[in-house]
Structure formats: structure tokens, C-alpha cells
């Protein structure tokens, strides 16, 4: 019996102790007409060896392609030590650290994570993580609404340069609570959030402004101006950032005259594999004065009965298991294991390493842009500087270009046409430190071939 250790002698003795004749009798309180589960449509069990073989073939089906897709999930090198340690049973098979004395490993690690993330964002406090980047932004918006609870109505400004899936997720989550999400247009030349579109809301009651950095197009936004605008409006400034980029770009705590109130985002670039989109984790950091509104698990340092340093879950009275219907959120987990990976990743890379990875990714994208600029019928769309991702515009359908690239085992990028139809045929291309100059040469050569092949078909 897979994973059930009972011998027939064990079963006999156990039934005798309970004083029943068979296991079925243990279900005698359940009405008979409910004991009807039928699993006959399911396959029979297999051994580990059989399944491993089958799954190796299954996984290989999708393997072996060069990946130039980013769009919120980024391929970076992950040091071998990271997942070797994460895979230790003591981390992987522990539960939420309710019994603090028996969970000091997880708790200290989360405290170290909170410290690293607060420092990377240059803000005062961090929680121990949420599900993913998009849901972290939804929680950040709900947090802003709680901070601004005196407002009559809740209007949150969302730039159209924010990841389209993030916009969908926050809509699904916060629209249940009478919060109005208002889209802010971008400048079609620069790819940045349009200051003029924002000015339309001058002197109005705005609950929060969301500020992506870099934005979905890879473009670096004018974060100082946006933050200062939000603060003069008495709106909460919510940054949503790529954490790796913050080793190179100005962190949210330093934006504008005051810094932002809340910074959140997707933690995946810091040591978490692409893995079909999850599990990743969302980070959420804020200024000290907002800590009571911060949702999710938070770890604090304290002392034990002998005065020795130790760590516990703290501020639990905000949470659902105590506050129930009045909790700051219904969340009762963090993404502990992914945070474990990120904490080890950030420790291994250190301050200089993290900056070098960000710089290398940026540098490789610049190389790619230089090469692509020489191609006919391909235009680099926005004039602003960007971070490791940029938009290419074509005269022929991107869908076909991607199919043509696929025949060379290249995943050419994310097709923007369905989500930004106003931009025409556009492709979002991502380059990280994992791509060599040869990879870039190869990509550009294949792109030229793909473009001309598609043009011939279209003509």
C-alpha cells in the first residue's frame, strides 16, 4: 500500500483496541447513501520507477528551447546551493511556525528575509511574503484602502503600463469590495505613464496611485514625479517593482521627496525557477507607520525565558485565525519555501552580485537592441531607457513570427497584440544574464529569417 505502513497484524490489533470488526465499521456514523464514491474512472497506481520514466518523457516534450520571454517571469541562473538547501526536508516538510521553539530555523530565515527585502526596497518593514506578485499588489491596494478608511469612496489609479495580468488579478480581487480602479494612459512615444493623463485627477480625492518600475514594456518610469504627485494628492504611493532591478535602479523608499508608502512585487527573479508560472511569491514592504495594516505573516525577534535571542510570529491579532471576519486579509500562509530560496539566493549573490546580475541583464538587452536596430522591418518602439526587456514592432503578424522562430527552437517573446491592440504588431522581448553574445547573434539572425519568411507569405 503506497505510503501506508500498516501490516495486517497491526490492523488486527488496532481494530481490537477500537473494538470494531473492520475498518468499514469506523464509517458507521455516515449515512449509507452517502458512501457512494466511485473511483473506477481513475487509473491504477504505478510505481515510482514507472511514473518517473513517463514524466521524464512528458517534461522533455516542452524542453530544450531558447527562451526570450519575460513578461513577469524571468529566467536567471540559480546557484546549485539554493535548491539543494531548499530541498532539505527540515525546510520543505515543516508547517507554518506556530510552535516557535520547534521552528527557529524557518523563523530566523524569515526574519533575515524581511531584513533583506526591506533593505533592497529601502523601506522599514516587510511581511514574510504573499502568494505572487499580482495578488501582492491586490493586497497592497486593500492595505491602502484601510489606511485611507476616512475616504468617502475609493478610487485607485492604475497605469496601463502595468502588467495586463496584474490588472486582471487586482480587478478580480478588489472589485468585490466597491473599489474603483481607474486606468491611466501611457505616452505612445516614450512608453511611460502619461503625466497629462494623471493631471486630470489633480486635487481630487484619490486613495492610491500604483507605480510600476520597470513597467510592463521594460520601460523605466519617472518614479520621482509620480511619487511626488501621489503625495501632494494625499494618495498612498504603491510601488510594484522587479526586485532584481532594484539592485541597479533607485529603490522605492527613495522615490520622490518622501519615498513610497508601500512597495510590492514578484519575488520570482530572486532564485525561483520559471516552473510554468508558480509557485512564486509576492513580497510586500512598507513604511513603519503602516505596519498594522500589513497583511500576512510577520516575524519578530524577541528573547526566550533565559534572555536568549529567538523569533516568533508576531502581530497575529491582525490575522484571520484571531480576527476572523475583521482580519486584514483571509490569507493564512506565506510562500515559505520560495522565500527560503530567495533568502539563500540573495545571500549568495550579495550586494555586488545582485547588482552585477541586473547589470549583465541590462547590458545584454542593449546588445540585442543594437543588433535588432539594423534589421529591416523591425522597429524598437519606445525611446525611453529600459531594463532587460523591450518592445519590438513589426509590419507582419507577430503570431506568425513567433511560429517561425519556434521552428528554430526559439521562444521569441510575448505577443503584445492581444493585450495592447493599439500598438499594432508588437513583441515584448526579454534578455537576462543567461544569454551569451552568441545566443543574441543567433536570435537576431533567426529573427531576420522569420521576418522575411512571414513577409513573403503575407505578400
Amino acid at each position: 500500500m503506497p505510503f501506508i505502513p500498516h501490516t495486517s497484524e497491526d490492523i488486527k490489533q488496532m481494530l481490537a483496541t477500537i473494538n470494531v470488526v473492520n475498518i468499514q465499521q469506523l464509517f458507521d456514523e455516515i449515512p449509507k447513501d452517502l458512501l457512494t464514491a466511485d473511483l473506477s474512472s481513475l487509473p491504477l497506481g504505478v510505481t515510482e520507477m514507472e511514473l518517473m520514466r513517463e514524466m521524464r518523457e512528458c517534461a522533455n516534450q516542452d524542453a530544450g528551447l531558447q527562451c526570450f520571454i519575460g513578461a513577469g517571469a524571468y529566467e536567471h541562473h540559480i546557484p546549485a546551493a539554493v535548491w539543494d538547501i531548499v530541498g532539505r526536508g527540515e525546510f520543505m516538510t515543516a508547517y507554518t511556525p506556530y510552535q516557535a521553539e520547534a521552528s527557529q530555523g524557518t523563523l530566523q530565515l524569515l526574519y533575515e528575509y524581511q531584513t533583506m527585502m526591506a533593505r533592497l526596497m529601502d523601506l522599514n518593514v516587510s511581511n514574510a511574503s504573499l502568494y505572487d506578485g499580482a495578488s501582492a499588489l491586490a493586497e497592497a491596494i486593500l492595505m491602502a484602502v484601510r489606511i485611507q478608511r476616512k475616504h468617502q469612496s475609493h478610487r485607485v489609479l492604475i497605469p496601463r503600463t502595468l502588467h495586463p495580468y496584474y490588472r486582471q488579478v487586482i480587478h478580480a480581487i478588489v472589485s468585490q469590495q466597491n473599489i474603483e480602479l481607474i486606468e491611466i494612459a501611457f505616452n505612445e512615444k516614450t512608453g511611460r505613464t502619461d503625466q497629462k493623463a494623471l493631471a486630470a485627477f489633480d486635487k481630487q480625492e484619490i486613495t492610491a496611485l500604483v507605480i510600476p518600475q520597470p513597467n510592463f514594456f521594460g520601460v523605466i518610469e519617472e518614479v520621482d514625479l509620480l511619487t511626488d504627485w501621489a503625495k501632494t494628492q494625499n494618495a498612498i504611493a504603491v510601488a510594484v517593482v522587479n526586485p532584481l532591478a532594484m539592485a541597479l535602479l533607485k529603490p522605492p523608499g527613495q522615490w520622490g521627496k518622501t519615498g513610497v508608502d508601500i512597495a510590492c512585487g514578484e519575488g520570482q527573479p530572486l532564485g525561483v525557477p520559471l516552473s510554468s508560472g508558480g509557485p512564486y511569491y509576492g513580497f510586500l514592504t512598507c513604511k513603519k507607520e503602516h505596519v498594522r495594516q500589513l497583511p500576512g505573516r510577520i516575524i519578530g525577534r524577541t528573547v526566550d525565558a533565559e534572555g536568549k535571542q529567538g523569533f516568533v510570529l508576531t502581530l497575529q491579532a491582525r490575522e484571520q485565525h484571531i480576527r476572523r471576519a475583521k482580519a486584514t486579509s483571509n490569507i493564512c500562509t506565506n510562500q515559505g519555501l520560495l522565500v527560503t530560496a530567495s533568502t539563500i539566493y540573495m545571500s549568495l549573490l550579495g550586494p555586488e552580485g545582485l547588482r552585477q546580475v541586473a547589470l549583465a541583464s541590462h547590458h545584454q538587452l542593449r546588445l540585442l537592441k543594437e543588433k535588432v536596430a539594423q534589421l529591416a522591418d523591425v522597429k524598437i518602439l519606445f525611446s525611453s531607457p529600459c531594463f532587460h526587456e523591450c518592445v519590438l514592432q513589426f509590419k507582419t503578424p507577430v503570431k506568425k513570427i513567433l511560429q517561425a522562430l519556434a521552428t528554430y527552437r526559439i521562444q521569441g517573446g510575448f505577443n503584445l497584440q492581444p493585450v495592447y491592440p493599439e500598438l499594432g504588431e508588437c513583441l515584448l522581448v526579454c534578455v537576462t544574464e543567461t544569454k551569451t553574445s552568441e545566443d543574441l547573434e543567433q536570435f537576431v539572425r533567426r529573427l531576420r529569417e522569420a521576418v522575411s519568411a512571414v513577409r513573403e507569405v503575407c505578400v
Partner: protein
Amino acid sequence: MTQLIFELSQQHRRAASQIPAANYDCSDIPAEFLRKTLPRLPEVSELDVVRHFTQLSQRNFSIDTHFYPLGSCTMKYNPRGVHRMAMLEGFLQHHPLSLEVHSQGFMACAYELQEMLKAVTGMRAVSLTPMAGAQGEFAGVAMIRAYHRARADHARDEILVPDAAHGTNPASAVQCGFKVREIATGSDGNMDIDALRAAVGPHTAGIMLTNPSTLGVFEQKIREMSKIIHAAGGLLYYDGANLNAILGKVRPGDMGFDVMHINLHKTFATPHGGGGPGGGPVAVGERLVPFLPVPMVQKTADGFRWLTETDCPETIGRLSTFMGNAGIILRAYFYARLLGREGLHRVAEFATLNANYLLAKLTAAGFTPAYVTRRASHEFIITLKNEAKTFHITALDVAKRLLDYGFHAPTMYFPLLIPECLLIEPTETESKQTLDAFADVLIKIMQEAKTNPALLQTAPHTLPVKRLDDVKAARELDLVYIQ
């Protein structure tokens, strides 16, 4: 004492083989956008990192190292082979936005898991995207709201929950904009049916239940309850927290539930990871199919394809950036495949056998079950109310003393209805010998309570730290290390 990684830091020390070495320039980015000083991360060697975090891991209890009978959490063995398969390069390197033609391997696994979950729950359709039980609850309640709205039934603004419910139930209902009304539990552990009858009406959107309930007993009048709710125009939500108790025996769809979530990290043995990631797929009956969260996987003659907003215009939307916790979905699928239909059928049987055996042993030794006349489900509650009075000890003291003996403590003080309680869930993967050892230790601890209660009151004694001052932690917040 293990130092903080920041205390190990030495200026200019680095793990050189991890750092891209070239001289890169970023002169195209204006200085106003750049970070001026490096983030203050630790400066340590690779060995420092490996040793530090390995040592931290050794300060944890876990399923791999200790019996972990944490009630309502289903801490069963997480098969290593399952983890190994999910860590295959092909799965790890797969980008979530790859073309469908480059995603068929993952999509096949996800599709098959959808089908398996339909079969074990007796539901009509499944969406795998919710990333935890609480997000599954949110999705389920949002679907109930969408259903009433689609019928222009706007008066339904109230969700009912039992007073013994997990705290996420009312919190999720409020996050979906509902009011919450609590329904009392009767002395036998079943819901008070008269109280339920009195509570329902034209404002009832639905009820959230788990069965077996959080009290560790089967809600026997579930069919009657389902009739009352449906007659009032409400829907029934099944919280899958206790699905392990009935897996392969009873299907929530057959009990009359309209919507539910499944905790993959409980019933389907995916690792808890020190508090996550989990997985909380939702399953629904016919009426709620149009509202399921996207994306989902559809099987066609040309292979698998994603179902998105375009295919499902009434969907409650997208709950995660991509496809939820895909790696957890894979693990749950592999686990289900290893067990197969014959193995899944045994899960509830042996989880129930283990719980009732342990309950019988502890009752014989003088412990007080919360519900003396009831059969245990996959878990049960003992109350230490009498011991607390006689020996001046608390359930917390007993829990902490168990840690000294190498057993993780059961869930304490939940459900809130039962004073000084321990909620014990042994799971099917533990042997009789482990259960015997656990019962012996509990009996021994009660002897200690008689002879030397201080031993319990100041426990634990053998762990890296003594009992921690959580009042100080909350009053003098120290959430990040200040150098």
C-alpha cells in the same frame, strides 16, 4: 545560538563563482533613476551560506524528522519521488507564457489532475488556479456572489458559517463583500438545525461548511441542511480542509455541495514548505461552471489549450499572474498517480483507523474526548479542562512538553468552542508503533503533571530556545535587523 547571516558578513567577501564578472555599463540610464548605494545584503562566502542555512534547517521540526499530528493540517508523508519528478529540468524551465505547442507536457498533467479531482469530489468542473485554501475560499464565495448577481438576486448579502469554523471562512466571505452570520453547534457536535432554519432567508447567499467538521465528527444531517439552504435559495460551500477523512468514500457533490476547494498540501501530500506554497483548486457543480476562475486546461483533438476570459465571459477572473502554483499542481498529480484508484480509496480508511486507534488508546488511559459518544473522523479533540484545574497546567504546557519528547504538538485552542483542547490528526502514513510511542509520551506527561507540574509549565527544555516572550515581540516590534 545561531548568528544572523548579517553578523557573519565581512566587507568585500563574496561567492565569486556566482557573480557575472565583466565590466558592464549602464550609461544609457540617467543618474536620477539609478541606485546610489548598494543594498546592504550580507557579504559572505558560498560555504558560509551553505553552512548557515543548513544549520538553520536543523533548528526545525518537520514531517521528515518528527511525528507532526497537527489537527486540521494533514501532515502526511510528502513522497520524495514526487518532489524529484516536479524538479525535472523540463518542468522547471518551462515559461508560463510559452506557446501552447510548447506547453503540452505540463498541460497534460494539469488536465488529468482536473479530471481526477472531478472524480473524487463528484463535481462537474475544476479550476486549478487558486494558490492556497484561503484563495480557493475566496474564489468559491466570489462565484456564489457572481451566481446570485447573474440572476439579479441582489438581496443575498449574507454568508452563514458554523461557530466552530476555521477563521479563513468568515474572513474570505468579508473579502467578497458579504456579511457573516455564525450558527451555533449542538452538544453532540452537529450543527444546531433549528438555529440554521431560523437564520436562513431571502438574504442568505450561502453557507460554508466542512464535513467532517472542525470538531472531528461527521455532520450527520448534511442532507437536511443542504435542503434547508437550497430551499432558501442559497448555495453550499465545502471547505476541503478535512477532505482526507472522506477521500474515496464520500463525495462532497453527493452531499449537496455546490462549490468547494481542495487543499493539495493536505489531501494530496504536497510539502507545506514552512508555511507554503499550497494549492487550493476549486470544484463546482453545474450551476457555477460559467464562473470558474481562469485559466483552465481544455482537451481538444489537436491537444491541450488554455481556456481564458475569451472562452469564459462570466468568469470571476484571474487570481494569479499565471497558472497558480503550477509546481504544486504537478506534485498533486504525481501523488494521485502513484496511489491510483486503489490507493486513493485507502487514504480515508487508514487516516480514520489511525485517529480512532489513538483516540481509543488515549481514552483508555483517562484522557477526555470532546465528544465521548462520537466516532472520530481522521482527527479528534481531547480536552484538558479537568487536568488544567487539578494540576494548574494548560494545553499549551502539554504541547510544549511534547516538543521535548520529539513530537510536534497537536493544534491547540482550536476550535475555540472546546476549552483547553488539543486537535490531533495522525494521518494515514504513520505506523501503529509511532502512534503507540506518542500515546505513551502523553500518558507520561500527565504523570509529570501530577508529580512535577513545573516541568510542563516551563517546557520546552531540550530545544534551541526556551519558551519565547511573544508579548515583548508584539510590544517592541523588531521586524528587521538594524545594524
